[in-house]
């Protein structure tokens, strides 16, 4: 909740700032007035200005920790089931996880017609991992950041998928796989696809190339930015609703109702976004495998 000495916009900005560790350039004036010495300095950013000044050589510590933590949770959970996998009667969590696996397997089978042992595990990882990252959105926005503030951690964004680095990181990973399989499966055909499509004439090669490259690049961007946009918007609304609580006692009840309503609706969104990310991954890789 917005503190007494914090305006609503400060509150929102605070919630949208990652815990950033990075290298400040030399000569940068820090928040306390000190000047960064020659050769720069690796420090925790204090505020958005410092984080932006760090440029590319910075890392969102919170996003990384939550993302990798959830990835490890996924691996641990599924590995536990995999280690005890047997053909007997399944029960409890085994049932639930097998349901997910069967669902992913069916989706892959429906969409991807080639033979590639990577696709199904990739789809499973994408689906469960993205789902877990999105699920962090349902934790009350102030809970963990406030707790961590007590321990001196200034900024904390606990939903990794509201960080474009995270979503684009996965999308670029998929993109690299797409390029790899396009070249591997089609070989020279991939170049032909880029240059002689849709107008099959050598004169049109530059136009074709431009259009195809745009189309190709649109794929990872649509993949990563769609997830980011949806989750960012959802998170934003949670933050706005949370800000409502500070608007006065009269706003508590409607804000609470809104919070519950949006959270329930968001259960749908997080699942759907995870599913869409998975399906698009499969579809893009399937396209990379198909010769025209």
């Amino acid at each position: 909740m917005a503190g007494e000495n914090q305006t609503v916009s400060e509150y929102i900005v605070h919630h949208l700032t990652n815990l950033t560790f990075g290298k400040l350039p030399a000569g940068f004036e820090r928040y306390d007035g000190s000047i960064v010495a020659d050769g720069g300095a690796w420090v925790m950013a204090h505020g958005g200005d410092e984080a932006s000044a760090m440029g590319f050589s910075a890392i969102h510590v919170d996003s990384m920790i939550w993302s990798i933590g959830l990835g490890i949770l996924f691996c641990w959970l599924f590995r536990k089931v995999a280690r005890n996998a047997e053909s007997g009667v399944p029960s409890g969590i085994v049932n639930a996880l097998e349901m997910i696996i069967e669902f992913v397997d069916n989706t892959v089978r429906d969409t991807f017609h080639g033979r590639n042992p990577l696709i199904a595990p990739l789809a499973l990882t994408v689906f469960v991992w993205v789902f877990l990252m999105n699920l962090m959105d349902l934790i009350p926005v102030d809970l963990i950041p406030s707790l961590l503030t007590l321990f001196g951690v200034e900024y904390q964004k606990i939903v990794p998928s509201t960080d474009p680095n995270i979503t684009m990181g996965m999308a670029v990973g998929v993109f690299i796989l797409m390029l790899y399989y396009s070249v591997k499966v089609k070989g020279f055909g991939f170049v032909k696809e880029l240059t002689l499509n849709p107008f099959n004439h050598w004169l049109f090669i530059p136009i074709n190339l431009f259009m195809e490259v745009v189309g190709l690049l649109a794929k990872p961007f649509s993949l990563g930015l769609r997830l980011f946009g949806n989750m960012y918007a959802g998170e934003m609304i949670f933050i706005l609703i949370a800000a409502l609580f500070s608007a006065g006692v009269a706003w508590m009840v409607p804000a609470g109702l809104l919070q519950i309503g949006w959270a329930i609706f968001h259960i749908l969104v997080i699942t759907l976004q995870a599913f869409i990310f998975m399906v698009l991954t499969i579809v893009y890789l399937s396209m990379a495998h198909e010769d025209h």
Partner: protein
Amino acid sequence: MNINLTLIGQMIAFVCFVLFCMKYVWPPIVAAMAEREKKIADGLAAADRASHDLELAKEKAVERLKEAKEEASGIVESANKRANQIVEEAKGAALVEAERVKASAQAEIEQETNRAREQLRSQVAALSLAGAEKVLGAAIDREAHADLVDKLASEL
């Protein structure tokens, strides 16, 4: 909202998790699921076979039952026949026995009658002799008139 090293970090983590999933998660679970599927399919097939066998066994049982019933009714019939036969035989034997008893009784009766008759006859002869003696006044010689008396006795 800055693009920075986090992107590279996430890519590396992504690759690691996908490889882990591909090596240690997906194959064992999918293998176990496939095996279970096969097991279930086998089980269903076995159940089908079993129900088919049951059907056959039921038919067989019905057949056997019918046979047994027929056999039983045959046995009952022959037993009845035999019983009737025994009764008839017994009846015949009883009739014969009765006949025999009757005959022997008749013979005895006849014998008795004859004996009584003889006795009576001799008594009558004696009585008539005594009567005649009394009438004639002891004049009649027993020896001399024996013929006459016997004749008379035989006429009785």
